[in-house]
């Protein structure tokens, strides 16, 4: 108990970089298991952002003085790091956004709304998408009469791949899918899905918000037309993320927002857009956030994403095993950890998910309870809500033990 047979990561050393983990909550050592919601930030990320704030705060691109050049270099340098991290073809294809939500909304608006989608055009999604990959398409449904279709899941939480055979038609314009479910942890075969979309002449959007922080993501191997990522789930700050898009498609697309930075020239009555990627980056960007995300990428690459994934795989397998021993507890999602990330949702018979989360909080354990911004999936699973534990690179087997023990405590409190 309490030890992984082989740990791919030196969590003891890693935890030194995360001061937030070294504290007590309600008199108990903090166990942070809400990583699918947001991740903690290591010292080097915070320091890098402080460095910008303390030593070279300036606007980017237009400042002809040393601080501005330094800021631009760091801001654009971070873009190169992210490009390499996700193996995107070119830096022009990496657009800063405030996060995955803005990235997907940008596609829905620029490509969908302004790009001439028409009534009867179809978008194929899945029942396991986060609201951020659902609601933007509702806008197109409601405004343009675009038809949405949903790929279902098997009972084990994996996608019914055969549904694509029927749902993708000659009217399909976009196939949108998450690479990793934020509720079930399911890792979807996105390269295969992108291939099927392309065979039908449709585009493919991959929501990589839950995958990029936890496993190697190779944008070129996936070959999606759009790929969206959030910085704050991968050790970076909130308010920064990227939309990666195929250059020829981005060239065709109208900008999402207008303002400074996204223009080449402006005159009374007309303007010309800037080159990629800046065409989609109106206004003073989140410079500190981008620099922080660059530092987060450095940190993750320093650990090696393959090892991060190995660690989480072993930890998830361990956690699933520990939870399986608790009577009345039902865990959702794939049992095979090669198809699952470290996201573990569960229900305990006789106790509402919010009550579980409250009692776990008393034990110093931070988990999420609710619908996890995936209400259609809750409907599909026929549950009002779940409690969700989600792991990251700094979590340990001892913490999985703490979770299992605390869940037994929940049962005691409720006399179950």
């Amino acid at each position, binding site marked *: 108990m309490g030890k992984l047979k082989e740990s791919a990561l030196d969590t003891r050393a890693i935890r030194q970089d995360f001061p937030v983990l070294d504290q007590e909550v*309600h008199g108990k050592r903090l166990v942070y298991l809400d990583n699918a919601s947001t991740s903690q930030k290591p010292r080097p990320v915070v320091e890098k952002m402080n460095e910008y704030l303390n030593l070279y705060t300036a606007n980017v691109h237009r400042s002809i003085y040393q601080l501005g050049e330094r800021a631009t270099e760091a801001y654009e340098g971070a873009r190169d790091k992210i490009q390499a991290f996700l193996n995107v073809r070119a830096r022009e294809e990496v657009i800063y956004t405030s996060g995955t939500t803005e990235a997907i909304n940008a596609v829905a608006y620029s490509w969908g709304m302004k790009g001439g989608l028409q009534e009867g055009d179809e978008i194929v999604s899945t029942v396991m998408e986060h609201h951020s990959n659902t609601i933007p398409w509702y806008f197109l449904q409601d405004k343009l009469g675009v038809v949405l279709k949903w790929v279902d899941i098997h009972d084990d939480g994996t996608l019914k791949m055969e549904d694509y055979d029927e749902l993708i038609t000659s009217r399909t314009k976009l196939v949108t899918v998450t690479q990793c479910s934020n509720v079930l942890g399911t890792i979807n075969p996105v390269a295969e899905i992108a291939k099927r979309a392309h065979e039908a002449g449709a585009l493919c959007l991959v929501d990589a918000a839950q995958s990029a922080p936890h496993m190697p993501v190779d944008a070129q191997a996936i070959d999606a037309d759009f790929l969206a990522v959030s910085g704050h789930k991968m050790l970076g700050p909130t308010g920064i993320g990227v939309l990666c898009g195929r250059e020829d498609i981005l060239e065709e697309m109208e900008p999402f927002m207008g303002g400074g930075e996204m223009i080449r020239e402006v005159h009374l009555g007309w303007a010309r857009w800037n080159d990629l990627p800046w065409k989609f980056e109106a206004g003073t960007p989140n410079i500190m956030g981008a620099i922080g995300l660059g530092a987060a990428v450095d940190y993750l690459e320093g650990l090696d994403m393959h090892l991060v994934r190995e660690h989480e795989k072993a930890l998830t397998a361990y956690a699933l095993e520990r939870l399986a021993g608790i009577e009345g507890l039902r865990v959702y999602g794939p049992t095979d950890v090669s198809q699952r990330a470290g996201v573990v949702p569960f229900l305990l018979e006789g*106790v*509402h*998910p*919010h*009550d579980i989360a*409250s*009692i776990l*909080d*008393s034990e110093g354990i931070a988990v999420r*309870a*609710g*619908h996890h911004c995936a*209400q259609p999936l*809750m409907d599909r699973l026929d549950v*009002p*809500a779940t409690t969700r534990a989600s792991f990251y690179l700094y979590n340990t087997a001892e913490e999985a033990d703490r979770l299992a023990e605390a869940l037994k405590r929940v049962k005691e*409190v*409720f*006399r179950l």
Partner: protein
Amino acid sequence: MSYEMYQEVILDHYQNPRNKGDLDPADIWAREDNPLCGDEIALYLKLNDASVVEDVKFQGQGCAISQASASMLTVKLKGKTLEEVLAIDEDAVLQTLGIPISHARLTCALLPLSALRIGLETYQEDGA
């Protein structure tokens, strides 16, 4: 803090809810939910000729705090005059619960009161 929320009386009302069921017809009734956590409460009140709560029932599902709060509210409502019912406020509900409620769980604790208020509003609007 959280353990203090799950005192004997709360668990008792959660696991053995009082006045759970339907009331048809009801003079005052309303349904309120919190889609964030899936809590649902439907509240039914029957008044007698003197505008005193003669019977009260609730239906619902959700967390221990919301369901216990509903059960305890129904106990409190029985025998009250309409005027007294109208005077029930958040403090009164929290006092009846008698436990420290964390900020995050306040919505759960007050959901039954929200339902009651909606019901009262409709009742008064209908000019009854």
